[in-house]
């Protein structure tokens, strides 16, 4: 059956700006940089509108490009996530209504201390609720690698959380 879908840039921007911004924010830990990356991703989308075939394709494309541009930005800046998060907490923090719980903030903070590949896999798994196969496609990596990154990332994050957040460990 023919699927007569026409991409509408402004609508895609409205629908996915939160997703793209959040992916960039969690990858970089810097609100300003995340906003810049999100802007660049949407402007890149504007140039690719003719090749976007469906809403699912648009979402997949945006996730893939947001992750890729965030990784590029991190490599360009060569800044460690922890430093950026300290800046975020001290300075241009999110609006009060956007702020997660202190535990959530701490977990986000700890997430930025994980290796980049593990962080990317965990963000896509737990922010975007994606399956390992979908993550593998978005990150252009083998499924087995993604599963391993998820497992190791979660284990490392849990170990860090156990040290920092006693409330996650039973009987602590």
């Amino acid at each position, binding site marked *: 059956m023919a699927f007569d879908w026409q991409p509408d840039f402004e609508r895609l921007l409205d629908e996915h700006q939160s997703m793209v911004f959040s992916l960039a924010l969690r990858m970089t830990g810097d609100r300003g940089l995340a906003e810049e990356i999100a802007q660049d991703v949407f402007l890149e989308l504007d140039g690719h509108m003719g090749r976007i075939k469906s809403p699912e394709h648009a979402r997949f494309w945006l996730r893939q490009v947001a992750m890729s541009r965030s990784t590029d930005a991190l490599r360009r800046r060569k800044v460690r996530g922890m430093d950026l998060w300290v800046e975020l907490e001290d300075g241009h923090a999110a609006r009060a209504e956007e702020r997660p719980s202190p535990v959530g*903030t701490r977990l986000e903070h700890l997430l930025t201390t994980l290796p980049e590949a593990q962080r990317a896999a965990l963000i896509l798994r737990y922010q975007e609720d994606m399956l390992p196969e979908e993550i593998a496609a978005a990150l252009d990596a083998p499924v087995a690698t993604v599963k391993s990154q998820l497992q190791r990332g979660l284990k490392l994050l849990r170990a860090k959380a156990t040290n920092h957040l006693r409330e996650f460990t039973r009987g602590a």
Partner: protein
Amino acid sequence: MEHEELDEFERELKQALERRPAPPSLKLRVMERRAQRRHPQSMIWMRLAATLLIVALLGGGLRWGLQQREERRQGEEARQQVMTALRITGHALNRVSTRLAAHDRAGE
């Protein structure tokens, strides 16, 4: 037990990683930058159209000028031919006239 603990941790992680709302300025800036990118494109097309128009006008003018020059050249050539023909005719008439005069003198 370990599995339950992990599930609880994963739930907490999922909650911590809920999408954050994008800053209100994001859409505005994207739309501004998009418009700025499109504006130069339209300017390029307008400049190209203006250039083509000027080239067409100059080309037309040049062609008209060359045509005029060619017409003038042809007119001049035709005039020269007429003048030559008139000169030849005049020369021939002079000769005829001279001969007639000589003939008249011989007849007297």
